[in-house]
């Protein structure tokens, strides 16, 4: 359609192509927003829990993104990639929260390291709200995680020499919710505001994890006797 419109004008081929490209770029910029969540995350100030934990970030967790395609006129498509920030944030938090932490990346890691349990965080849901939709002058992000603590043997698939989460039976499993918001500010773009809200949500997830971990059913028994409680 853009090309047909430009055809009706008396312009050279080259100028037409450049104009088409510019118009398409402008239209694309108006209808989609892409955020790769970035931030700096502090090391938590806590007295470490005396256990040795393996942390397993799944592929879905590492590459998590929220995709919301526009469905009507005036709406904007959003793609919010949280995976990298999730890994960065939890990789800062867990080693400070537990006395000993190793990051499990392969079957060999599981065989090599002697850990009391493996902690597997998974992002169950991420939702967002922007002032355009809510008429409230804040950008908001909600996150919901499912966390599981499992014996290392539960996720070892010796036959195929790989890690398998299919038949695992965690001895502790719990949901974790987080919320972050940031108000509208002068000269702040939608993308910056959503990024800031996501960073706040991650910080809130960490705060919720730290303050609720010892109340999770099964966790206290495990901490008191890591070898037998499982």
């Amino acid at each position, binding site marked *: 359609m853009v090309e047909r419109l430009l055809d009706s004008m008396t312009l050279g081929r080259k100028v037409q192509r450049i104009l088409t490209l510019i118009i398409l770029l402008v239209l694309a910029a108006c209808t989609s927003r892409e955020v790769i969540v970035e931030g700096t995350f502090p090391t938590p100030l806590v007295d470490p829990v005396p256990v040795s934990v393996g942390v397993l970030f799944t592929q879905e967790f590492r590459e998590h993104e929220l995709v919301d395609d526009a469905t009507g006129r005036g709406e904007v498509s959003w793609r919010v990639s949280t995976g990298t920030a999730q890994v960065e944030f939890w990789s800062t938090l867990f080693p400070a929260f537990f006395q000993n932490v190793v990051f499990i990346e392969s079957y060999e890691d599981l065989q090599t390291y002697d850990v009391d349990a493996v902690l597997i965080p998974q992002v169950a849901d991420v939702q967002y709200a922007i002032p355009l939709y809510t008429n*409230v002058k*804040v950008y908001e992000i909600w996150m919901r995680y499912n966390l599981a603590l499992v014996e290392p043997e539960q996720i070892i698939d010796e036959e195929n020499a790989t890690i398998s989460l299919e038949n695992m039976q965690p001895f502790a499993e719990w949901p974790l919710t987080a919320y972050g918001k940031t108000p509208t500010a002068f000269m702040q773009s939608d993308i910056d505001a959503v990024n800031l809200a996501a960073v706040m949500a991650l910080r809130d997830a960490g705060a919720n994890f730290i303050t609720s971990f010892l109340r999770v059913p099964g966790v206290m028994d495990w901490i008191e006797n890591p070898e037998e409680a499982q």
Partner: protein
Amino acid sequence: MRRTLLSGLMLGGLLGGCVTANVDEMTFDAPVAGMTDGSIVILGRRHAPDYDTEPDFIDCIGNHISRGSESISVIPERQFVDALYPWFEPRTAPLSIESVGRLMILPSVANKLEDLGLNYMIWIDGRTQDTNSSGSMTCGIGPTGAGCFGFGTWGTESEYEATIWNFDDGAEVGKMSALTSGQSYMPAVVVPIPIIAPVQDTACDSLGTQLLQYLSAGS
């Protein structure tokens, strides 16, 4: 020359006459003693569902106090909150001085607060928001140039309350508030000329001055 001078006088009168700011100050507890040397932290409340106390307002108050007294060291908000993460996040921040006492049971938190040598913690709760707007403006672009014509006006209101916690006594020792409002205007004859009421800046000066007087009393 006379015409230029007259125009300048009219513009100056317009600017001065249109920008108004009202300040309402209240101090509930009279200052009892000032601090000679020590550190304070100023923190914004961020747990309300529909607003956050603006970080730049917190910085403004901190700068006001730092400029006013060389003996008072103001710990930047972000630095303090990060150093004590996750205990001063919206979910976990203490709402009363008694809650800080419960937080001090954690050895790591108690040690960090001792390292910082904190004398006072000041919580600021409030926001600046536009209240009403009216007028209309039309802008156009043509082969010979672009321009706007019209008039717009809007009101702004700031409302902030500061609560002071004395760490040495473990007690809440005072509350102060500042309420400012103003009307901003934007006439446009070809070029829009914004005449902005410095509402938030006035609230910052007002609250900053009150806090400085409180912290410096008797010193």
